[in-house]
């Protein structure tokens, strides 16, 4: 069984009378591949019945923290998701949602000056007092330099 949740029409289409909006999705298809070799099919069947694991990345919106741009100069955020292997915490800063003027690809830089991370009560060994603007190049350079410049 598949469950698909669609967003309200007012978030998708624009018109002068927002109470009469509609949209429909057509041609939704399920893609699948087919095995034509009996041997391979038997192999797959036995794998799926005897146990098969798939590894993937699970993405979850943990929380949304609203703040004021001019007065909130410090944000304390606690993330305590119970995970066996937390890979990344990603923060995106967006202007409050208004259906009529919303740029889904606009992620604002909130004028950060310092980021301090404490994991399970232990502070970061390199940046105990937090990472500030002048530390960023050392961390970010690996994305910009293809090779080491000698």
């Amino acid at each position, binding site marked *: 069984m598949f469950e698909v949740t669609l967003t309200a029409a007012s978030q998708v289409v624009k018109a002068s009378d927002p109470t009469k909006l509609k949209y429909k999705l057509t041609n939704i298809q399920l893609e699948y591949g087919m095995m034509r070799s009996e041997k391979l099919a038997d192999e797959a069947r036995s794998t799926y019945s005897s146990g098969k694991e798939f*590894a993937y*990345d*699970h993405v979850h919106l943990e929380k949304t923290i609203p703040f004021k741009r001019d007065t909130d100069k410090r944000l304390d955020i606690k993330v305590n998701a119970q995970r*066996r292997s937390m890979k*990344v915490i990603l923060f995106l800063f967006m202007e409050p949602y208004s259906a009529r003027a919303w740029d889904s690809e606009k*992620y604002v830089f909130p004028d950060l000056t310092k980021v301090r991370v*404490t*994991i*399970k009560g232990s502070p970061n060994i390199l940046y105990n007092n937090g990472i500030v603007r002048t530390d960023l190049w050392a961390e970010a350079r690996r994305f910009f330099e293809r090779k080491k410049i000698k």
Partner: protein
Amino acid sequence: MNLKLFLIGDRFGLLVDPRSMADRTMHGSGTRLVNTTDGVQLELERTGTSSGNLNCQAFVISHSQFNILGNQLQSVQF
């Protein structure tokens, strides 16, 4: 999931990488947060500029696994 660098438009993301080993490509190389109440604590300091409100969305991305047994979904672990 791979990191990609986008340098166009209004796109900023703050990414905290709590890997527990040098190789971040390995499945399960992240931080284990099980039976802990401390979790991850973040302090962000900023200068107050411009006006209006912003929403900070915190996404948690974790290595997960789903298991199939007897042709059926048996469990999802993350």
